[in-house]
């Protein structure tokens, strides 16, 4: 989603360790607007973004703490629909 709108260097930096519900995770995400935007504007590479997240979570959960299916669902697009309520 971030890449879709033109951001570069999109990175899920780490989890915060505080989750506001059993189906959400606290995360820190960073992205940069390219110094020259022409080539990135309108880019629709959702696969690339998903792969970045996938790599992050594959690394973070080698022990299988999350199922593969859960990992696939983790992306800004799949998520950020849930969160800050008790």
């Amino acid at each position, binding site marked *: 989603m971030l890449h879709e709108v033109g*951001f570069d260097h999109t990175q899920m930096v780490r989890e915060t360790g505080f989750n506001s519900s059993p189906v959400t995770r606290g995360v820190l995400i960073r992205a940069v*607007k390219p110094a020259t935007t022409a080539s990135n504007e309108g880019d629709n590479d959702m696969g690339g973004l998903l792969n970045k997240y996938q790599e992050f979570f594959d690394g973070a959960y080698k022990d299988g703490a999350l199922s593969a299916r859960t990992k696939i669902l983790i*992306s800004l697009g799949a998520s950020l629909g849930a969160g800050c309520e008790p």
Partner: protein
Amino acid sequence: MTKGDHIGRVAQTRASNVLYGSAVITTKDKGKIATSINGKYRKVAQNPEGLFKYPTGKAGLDALQYDPELVRLLPDSIAESYCGPGNPFSMGAINKGESVLDIGCGAGVDTILAGMMAGTDGYVTGLEIVPEMLQRAQNNLRELDVSHVSLLEASAEQLPLPDKSFDVVISNGVFNLVVDKVKALKEVFRVLKPGGRFQIADQIRTGEMPKETSSIVKSWGR
């Protein structure tokens, strides 16, 4: 459920409808979501303690390892109003002289901290949709000498701000509540200067999205 189920399809349809998988969130649904967000954050503006699953106030700032030197400068009455789920500055501090936008600033604790880091050669804008939260932020700002920090009542989905006007956009616990995330992210992109940074702390969903619009609306933010 396949990879693409939610990802590619969280998109705008007609003018203001938003798709979540196959569920359509209409303007009316958005109204219901806005009412529940307003109801919750009107209370949070008084005091967030006990209203979140994660620590808030000074305990939250400590647990999320905010710079203790800066936290020390916050009066208790300001620190207690913090309700962010993460520390956007842990991904990179704000440099002296930079311009910063804090989207969904709530009571303005991150806004104030960004103002301290940017110094008076920089400027910081806190933007918030719930009037009571913004009022609390205003009260908080009054306690400090921060004339280079300003507040704005608006939605993340439509920033009343010029293109390319900020070095950094931060947001803490807000995008999970925004309905049209693509629209809001496009707005972040628009107001950032080329080379500008976006640092977001938030809650992301790891389980499936409900299939029915009514369930999505009812469970919004949960």
